[in-house]
């Protein structure tokens, strides 16, 4: 964990709901991997927002020490603005070595924590399907690489060819609306449990995005009780193997 600063090079509007910040940062971009997040704070003496919001990089360019992050348009950012960053938070996603098809699920939330894994997977010739529902549909999926199959799900988490997409996937990464995050994750777990005879280990990962105060494991606000023991989401997360949750 380290504290650093980034400068906003450019702000581009993706649609009426989302904007993309292009930032330059020294010696950090090369370390960012899918699953990592950063705790961001504007260079201000104000205390609103108080806790640092979590930023999920959507692309990185180590050669130019730059990365980009997609954010809601509810907050306005300026070119040249300095952003204080604490990071990296969490562990990279644990992708299997032999992957052919990865299913990404954004349930009633934009797929922000999953975005960085898309270029990584595609560059390794792995097929990517993104299923998206609810408020996640505000995200401009048209801007994703054309190789990504984007499927819209309904509020009950049904989508066309669901059995096939679930069956084809070697790994699944799910993110849900952080309000009542665990309840929603359990619903996803039940859907997969019904669709597959068995949900194997390291197959279905919940990517948790609840707010975290410290990001270093000190405050213990993000401790999650697993079947066996506890996990600190800001250290060992954000991805949790849902077979460890003891949901039956």
């Amino acid at each position, binding site marked *: 964990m380290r504290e650093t600063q980034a400068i906003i090079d450019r702000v581009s509007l993706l649609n009426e709901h989302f904007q993309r910040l292009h930032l330059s940062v020294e010696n950090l971009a090369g370390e960012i991997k899918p699953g990592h997040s950063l705790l961001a704070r504007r260079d201000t003496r104000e205390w609103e927002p108080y806790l640092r919001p979590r930023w999920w990089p959507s692309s990185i360019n180590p050669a130019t020490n730059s990365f980009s992050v997609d954010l809601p348009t509810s907050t306005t950012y300026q070119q040249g603005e300095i952003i204080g960053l604490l990071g990296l938070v969490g562990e990279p996603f644990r992708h299997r070595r032999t992957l052919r098809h990865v299913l990404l699920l954004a349930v009633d939330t934009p797929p922000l924590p999953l975005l960085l894994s898309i270029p990584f997977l595609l560059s390794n010739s792995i097929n990517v399907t993104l299923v998206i529902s609810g408020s996640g549909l505000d995200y401009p999926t048209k801007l994703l690489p054309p190789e990504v199959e984007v499927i819209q799900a309904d509020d009950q988490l049904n989508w066309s060819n669901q059995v096939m997409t679930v069956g084809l996937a070697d790994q699944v990464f799910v993110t849900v609306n952080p309000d009542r995050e665990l309840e929603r994750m359990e619903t996803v777990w039940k859907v997969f449990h019904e669709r597959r005879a068995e949900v194997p280990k390291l197959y279905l990962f919940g990517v948790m995005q609840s707010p975290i105060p410290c990001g*270093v494991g*000190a*405050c213990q606000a993000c401790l999650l009780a697993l079947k066996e023991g506890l996990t600190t989401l800001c250290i060992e997360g954000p991805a949790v193997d849902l077979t460890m949750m003891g949901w039956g």
Partner: protein
Amino acid sequence: MTIELTRPAKQVLTVDIPVMAASGILGFGDHYRDLIDFKKLGAFVTNAVTYEPRRPANGRRVQPIPTGTLIHTGLPNPGISKIMAKYRQLWETLPLPVILHIAVTSLEHARKCASRAEAESAIDAIELGFDDEQPWQETEEVVAAVVKNTEKPVLVRVPFIDPLNHARAAADAGAGGVVVCAPPRGTVMPILEVDPTGMSIYDRPISGRIYGPLTKPIVLRFVEQVVQQVKIPVIACGGIHREQDARDFLQAGARAVQVDSVVWVKPTVLELIARDLGGLVLTRPMGALADEWHRGYGQTEQIAREESQRRRHAQNKS
């Protein structure tokens, strides 16, 4: 400069710098080692420890509120025995006194925790934390039992409710000093969603401790009252977010300060306050770049902003 944080006794808690992080902020170990120089702090206060293991709270635990946050962790910890086994070695090597924070769940458990801590050379002092609903008469009873079971200096972090009576009770029962005070508790109704007509749909209420700069003026008043009426050392804790906040508490008569949630938001502020109150504020060496000295004191950001504005202005003109 040596500061005595507990009243004269066989063992007295002394610090060189009157600044430390509050319990629950830095964790049990050196999680913040990359961000904070522990040598610049007066003491290390651990997260809350109980005699028996405690699980984390269920449901939503962090809820942002205007200029602050509400947090309910449930004080998870594996119990004092496992904590000691895991962190004893680290605490022994820390370059500052270690204060074990014991969350009082019952008189018997508090007493057992104190006896356990008494045998540990890695622990320099004990801080007792009480539930907000605990009557001050029980505080007196618990403190007396703990003091009987240890020769280590005992601090009492008084609850936000009725801190003066709790502080009096702690002093009467033999506490070495008091920490004024624990963060207040509150309840928030988080908005779950806004329906198409614009009506907010609320989630289940969440209760927890409130952190943020808003608590400082209230705690400052408590500190003034306790300092005037209780004749044992007072450590102030609540809402400190900058050097001047900490100075205000010392001016009100506190011997030292505990800094809380600002450490999560801006970790370097803890060290800045410690440098300031520890007399370590030095003049920046001539010719040093701002960021070579310290980001917080530098002007690099401001210069970068002005430069960027100038460039934009020039671009717009052309």
